[in-house]
């Protein structure tokens, strides 16, 4: 009972912000509180949810993965070529897209671990390299997928929800389970809290780093399926700046950029806040500059609210 109350408190500040946004937009626009908005958001968020979940894992270990947007674009490019030019079935093409993400993530992890380069720098390099590879893969062209991936973004019969949204929620639950119940999750938190102490307690930190970067890459690869399904196309120019949205979602959710702290569920609420803002602002007719101004302000507000909550308890 006590722990239930404790849990509610942990999510209270974030949930209140989300609720306030929904009520605000609901009163500003009579089209906001409709099934159409809901399914539009549900269709919008899987990409960011997957990438932000991977980002949360990396941030918890004290690292950062700036390459996710470009890795997603590369995976999407490979997906496009395999589906359109090579006529592969979706399942195998999707599998390869995920493997592309894993490979990019493993590369990040390997350089961090073996050459002891800070992940900020390694993944900044990978961001450029994978973007270049994405252009090379598609010869800088947008591949129209002619309905080959749409099935993932179509509503499941009778429900206002898509397979990609289900996938995203399952990934969030799995990541949260790993962080709170699995030994590797505990080791990730320990590594992010104090690397020297973790090593001196006999824990090898290199495999943990490899794991989180590979996981972040894999989720970016998986997110390429959500992205292409929603757009119906694979665009090598796509997802520029996605890493910043992912970091924003994680930070709104209370993940520490210094490492050692974070939760997949809270990051998911962060994603919901960002998505609600975007959908709501679009409906009340806000211009692009206005949207960015408000979104930025909400990020700061959410983090301040969260730190006030912690100071109070």
């Amino acid at each position, binding site marked *: 009972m006590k722990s239930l109350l404790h849990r509610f408190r942990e999510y209270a500040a974030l949930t209140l912000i989300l609720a306030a946004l929904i009520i605000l937009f609901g009163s500003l626009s009579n089209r906001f509180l409709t099934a159409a908005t809901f399914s539009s958001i549900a269709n919008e968020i899987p990409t960011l949810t997957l990438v932000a979940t991977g980002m949360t894992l990396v941030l918890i270990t004290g690292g950062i993965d700036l390459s996710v947007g470009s890795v997603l674009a590369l995976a999407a490019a490979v997906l496009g070529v395999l589906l359109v030019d090579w006529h592969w079935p979706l399942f195998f093409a999707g599998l390869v897209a995920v493997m592309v993400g894993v490979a990019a993530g493993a590369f990040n992890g390997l350089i961090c671990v073996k050459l002891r380069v800070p992940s900020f720098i390694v993944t900044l390099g990978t961001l450029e390299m994978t973007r270049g590879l994405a252009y090379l893969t598609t010869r800088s062209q947008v591949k129209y997928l002619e309905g080959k991936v749409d099935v993932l973004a179509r509503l499941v019969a009778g429900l206002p929800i898509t397979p990609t949204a289900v996938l995203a929620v399952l990934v969030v639950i799995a990541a949260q389970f790993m962080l709170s*119940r*699995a*030994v*590797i*999750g*505990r*080791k990730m*938190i*320990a590594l992010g*809290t*104090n690397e*020297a*102490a*973790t*090593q*001196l*307690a*006999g*824990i*090898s930190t290199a495999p943990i780093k490899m794991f989180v970067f590979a996981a972040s890459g894999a989720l970016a690869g998986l997110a390429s399926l959500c992205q292409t399904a929603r757009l119906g196309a694979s665009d090598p120019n796509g997802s520029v700046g996605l890493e910043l949205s992912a970091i924003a979602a994680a930070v709104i959710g209370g993940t520490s950029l210094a490492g*050692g*702290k974070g939760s997949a569920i809270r990051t998911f609420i962060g994603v919901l806040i960002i998505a609600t803002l975007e959908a709501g602002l679009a409906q009340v007719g806000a211009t692009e500059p206005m949207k960015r101004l408000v979104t930025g302000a909400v990020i700061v507000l959410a983090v301040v609210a969260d730190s006030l909550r912690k100071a109070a308890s």
Partner: protein
Amino acid sequence: MLQELNVLPTLSVAENLFLPELPSRFGLVNRRALRAKAQEALARVGLEHLNPNTPAALLGVGQQQLVELAAALAEKCRLLILDEPTAALTAHETETLFEKIHELRQQGISVIYISHRMDELRRICDRVSVLRDGQRVATLPLSGTSTQELVKLMAGREMPTRPMPHGRQPGAVALSVRQLRAGSVVRDVSFEVRSGEILGLSGLVGAGRTETLRAIFGADRSDDSAIAIHGRKIRIRRPSEAVAAGLALVPEDRKQDGLLLPQSIRVNATLADLKGTLLRREEELAATARVIERLAVKCDSVEQPASTLSGGNQQKIVIGRWLLPDSKVLLLDEPTRGVDVPAKEAIYKLLRELADDGKAIVVVSSELPELMSLCDRIAVMSAGRIVQEFLPHEWTQEKLTEAAFRGHLTS
């Protein structure tokens, strides 16, 4: 002037010299005046050939030390305090430094020179004060005072301390270290510890004791070493391999290297015993409760962050975590530093009990009485080597202190 070098490596020599008050005009650094003043200051320490615009990082340690000396002199001081200034210097650089100190003395500047190197004191000092436990115990003219007399003063009154009588018989050799070399500090360390035995590692700060433990544990790189655990030779390249082989290390700095400060007591106490795929909450709680009970940790809840505990209770957690994976050899580096008296007693009691249980224990400590009351044997390190081993009936504070200086005496 401090023992540790204090230069900012990316700034020029001149900037380092006058950092507290750079000559300036309208808030901008006056380069010409800076250069002139720097040349003048450098000339005073015999570095007139050095270009003041050289980045400090390009200087050798000895030159950096002289630059610091120049900076100290540039303040037009009457009194110069040097804290172990030769710690990082080569013999030649030391000579240069001594020449300069000699010149300053003739210019009427007073010098306080802090060192544990007897030969240096004899070379440059007139009088010597001996400090012990934060008190001045004597001030003597150096000529006419023997080194033995000084060592005796430093060791303090004769306090014949022996370990408490116990029934245990040391068993088989649990850890054997042969000719360990690591970094620039550990030069040649060989020792053995048996099951059921507590070995003390004594010596001066900088003798290489911490580095020895870290090298054995795989935390620092070592070479040419032969480490055997229960007679089986193994190569330990990282701490995880050491733990797998049954070693445990309680590091010197518990906040930097021991604890996950913001995490709970439970997370900290079980950190060395994370096995399998899933966490088992009930087992974690039970294991944490055992650590808390065995070491009498004072806390409100196992979910309390480690940062909220007192130093003594924090240390108990770091030691207690090694009860769980059933380590065979415990390496403890200053286990009672900054720990209150009741916690010290709890730690001593635990170490004796663990030895009774057949664990082999190595304790590094700078407190001789602590080692003398706890250990079955004390090995003294000096300048990267083990210079002598003592059994309880052989040791006195004076003999142990004398051995600790042995590596520094010029023969």
